């Protein structure tokens, strides 16, 4: 049975899929002279979704975001919000909120004045404005700091003011460009939770940029994985983790063990991958292709356990990380694989030669 929380999360996504998407980016592209910052890209975001743009530095995340809010002029393509073409709408007339990495709080205005700014720009009546600012402040638990100036706040508090300033005018779409990039790890995790809570409470449509894969996995309804100025793969976190389409996707999300090789069929028609580490059976539903990369996740590997495939190697390191233990097994030369030990299993000794096995349907063959 689904928890009520999960229901509220998934419901708008499903409803949105049928109706017009909240945001539709169609063939959007950006070139700077010879550099292509974003290849023509199509992206549909249903109302209420939390979509994460994830990718390495320079992959075009910020470019995409800034085109959506109008700070960068596209070289081609369209942006539709609720079915309306907004490609040429000036920034200040788009109903879009942007949370900056470095907060961009106005240093000459108090916390309350910062949060009231977008309402003032929209001509909200003073009484109404005061009330909404107060609500927004309470939403981020900063009611007591209304009269302070931004430089009198800690990094986490400033970030919460920036969030309140964005949520207060309920824009159709909220964009966040690495909003937690400047915070330390503990605060980051807390703020991730806060942002998810705001998303839940307001039902806002959020596009969130990060290059931290754990953050993306933890927060998103869907992840849009970007690389080399285009979308590499778009799907739910589980989708991308379990069924990466490319070696890049497999490598970027989670830890992967990777074997490159040629595909052959044995006598019974079972697909096999011939690699430098031996031949491995692939899952029966593997699509036909001459070669590829086999991805096996650490938790799918077993030391001295059962499985269709096997590699042998020497234990070179064991890493204890609190909730789990990882074992690094050297296959000779530079090659190592990572195995995640099951709970309660005693780690092997360093230097011990072990057999690592996995089932044929545990691996995924990608391009």
């Amino acid at each position, binding site marked *: 049975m689904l928890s009520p929380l999960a229901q509220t999360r998934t419901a708008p996504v499903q409803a949105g899929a049928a109706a017009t998407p909240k945001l539709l980016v169609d063939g959007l592209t950006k070139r*700077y002279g010879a550099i292509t910052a974003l290849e023509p890209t199509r992206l549909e975001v249903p109302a209420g979704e939390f979509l994460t743009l994830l990718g390495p*530095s*320079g992959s075009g995340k*910020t*470019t995409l975001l*800034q085109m959506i*809010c*109008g*700070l*960068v*002029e596209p070289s081609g393509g369209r942006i539709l919000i609720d079915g309306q073409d907004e490609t040429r709408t*000036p*920034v*200040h*007339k*788009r109903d*879009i*909120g*942007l949370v*900056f*990495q*470095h907060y*961009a709080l*106005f*240093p*000459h205005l108090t916390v309350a004045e910062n949060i009231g*700014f*977008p309402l003032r*720009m*929209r001509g909200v009546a003073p009484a109404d404005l005061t009330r909404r600012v107060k609500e927004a402040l309470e939403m981020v638990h900063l009611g007591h700091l209304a009269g302070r*100036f931004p430089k009198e706040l800690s990094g986490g508090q400033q970030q919460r003011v920036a969030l309140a*300033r964005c949520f207060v*005018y309920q824009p159709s779409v909220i964009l966040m460009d*690495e909003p937690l*990039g400047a915070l330390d790890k503990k605060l980051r995790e807390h703020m991730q939770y806060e942002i998810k809570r705001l998303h839940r409470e307001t039902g806002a449509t959020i596009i969130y940029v990060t290059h931290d894969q754990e953050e993306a996995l933890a927060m998103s309804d869907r992840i849009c994985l970007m690389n080399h100025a285009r979308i590499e793969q778009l799907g739910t976190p589980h989708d991308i983790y379990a069924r990466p389409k490319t070696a890049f996707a497999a490598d970027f999300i989670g830890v992967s063990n990777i074997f490159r090789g040629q595909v052959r069929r044995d006598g019974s028609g079972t697909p096999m991958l011939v690699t430098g580490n031996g031949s491995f059976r692939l899952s029966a539903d593997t699509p036909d292709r001459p070669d590829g990369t086999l991805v096996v996740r650490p938790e799918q590997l077993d030391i001295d356990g059962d499985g269709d495939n096997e590699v042998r190697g020497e234990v070179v390191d064991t890493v204890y990380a609190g909730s789990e233990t990882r074992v690094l097994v050297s296959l000779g030369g530079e090659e190592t694989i990572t195995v995640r030990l099951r709970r309660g299993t005693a780690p092997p000794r360093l230097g011990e030669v072990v057999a690592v096995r996995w089932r044929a349907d545990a691996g995924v063959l990608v391009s």
Partner: protein
Amino acid sequence: MSAAALNHDGAFAAARRRLRFGPLWLAAPGLAFLAIFFLFPVLRLLSLSVQDLETSAWTGDHYARIVATDVYFRVLMSTFRIAGLTALLSLLFGYPLAYWLAQLPERQRGLAILAVMVPFWTSYLVKTFAWMVILGRTGVINQILSGTGMSPLPLLHNEFGVMAGMVHAMLPLAVLTMLPVMTTLDRRLVQAAETLGAPPANAFWLVYFQLSLPGVAAAGLLTFISSLGFFIVPALLGGPQQTMLAQLIISQIQEMLNWAFAGALATFMLVAALVTCWVYDRLFGLSSLSGETSGRTGGGQGRLRGAGMSILSGLAKASTALGGPVGRVLGPRMMDRLLPLYSAAVIVFLVAPALVVVPIAFTTSPFLDFPPPGYGLEWFRVYFNSDLWVSATIRSFAVAFATAILATLVAGLAALALARSSSRWRGAIFAFFLAPMIVPRIVIAVGLFYLFAQIGLVATDLGLIIGHTVLALPFAFVAISAVVKGHDWRLDQAAATLGANRVKTLMLVTVPLIRGGLVAAFLFAFITSFDELTVAIFVSGGVKTTLPKQMWDDMILQLNPTLAAVSVVVFAIVMALLLIAEWLRRPAR
């Protein structure tokens, strides 16, 4: 990440540039203004210098006459001599003071700089008047000397008088130009050199001094160029031997209305200024003037560099040799106090003239006796009851106010435009806005006088305002640019995403955040105009006189205590403005 944000900022500018109303358009009013009231009149004056008076045919006669006529040639030479000496002495006296300031703790340095700045904020005419009072035959110094039974010294109307006045005026500029380089200079480098075995003198000359050279060169450039166009100081403190080019130009225009010849003289001055700039640019790069780091730090390449190094080593040896015996005579404690004592003496030299004027303003005597025989308010009464003085004060105030508003507005738009533009014209436009600072004032003033005579702006307030705005624009522009450079444009982007249009973003975000620069620009422009004589000497006339012009006329005719009273009033007005500006500039709440 911030680099990426900056990239996008550039992209923003690039995208807007393609639209009709790009950011560079904001510079258009300033460019048009300078083209009409600066570039055109100066070029016109230069072209007059190669035209025959009657036939308008091309001729080099005027130049030939300057070189051939002994008097004119001597003036040319004495101009370069005085300007060169002024620059040299300002550097010599200023360097130890700047060195001392650089090592003071921040707070004390701020206070000391205020004192160093006193001549900078004091009107040229007030300063010069003060020197006349101090150096005159019956002046302060000579009265003290005769009090001790010594015979009076000839201090005024000779080279000494001119140099005192010039160096006093230029020293703050020299010190303030050298200071930023020295404060950013890492003193640990000198310590490192000492731990590496360099004796203190070597460490100073071969490390510290060499690294501070760009600042020294910039100070030399600015003081030399500014000194070229002086006329108030040589006219009032010097004798015939100290006549400078600007005086000659003024008399050519005022007494003979010989535009062509004045144009030729102006050309000499302009060329001298430009050649100096060019040489400086070759050696250091002009961009280092505005504090931007250039690739070329410290004296040139190759042989020049080698020669420079051996000179510095020589200096190091000499100062070690000299330092030893002097140190033994004075003792270590005295040696440590040498620099503070010296600095205090220079600061007294800078501040004292402004103070000497005050008691004289309250004298009961009709003469400039010092100390005054008694105190009263008589000369203030004379001042406030004189229509001439009062109307001149009001006119100066109004003109300065209008100039300040105009210059701040035009320079502010231009500075905003240039900060956000990535156009390849950027550098050229930047230089154009600074140009009125490099072209000697007298050249601009004569050019404007010619233009105004044709379009009927002579002896009008509008003419004065226009002329003063041309002179004030570079200062306002620099003041605003310095602040705009540190402005975080992401805040403007944030305002836009929050729903603010361009005008609201400008008024609610940009302007409040660059307020410090705007206030400084307003102040610089106001004081430039309030103290301006070069344009006023030609453009204001008859009853429509300004305060500096009225002071000038009085000082040429005869010194009197009313001038002291006026000086005190001018000084008070400027101080009040400084205080108001300081108060306005403080961040709100």
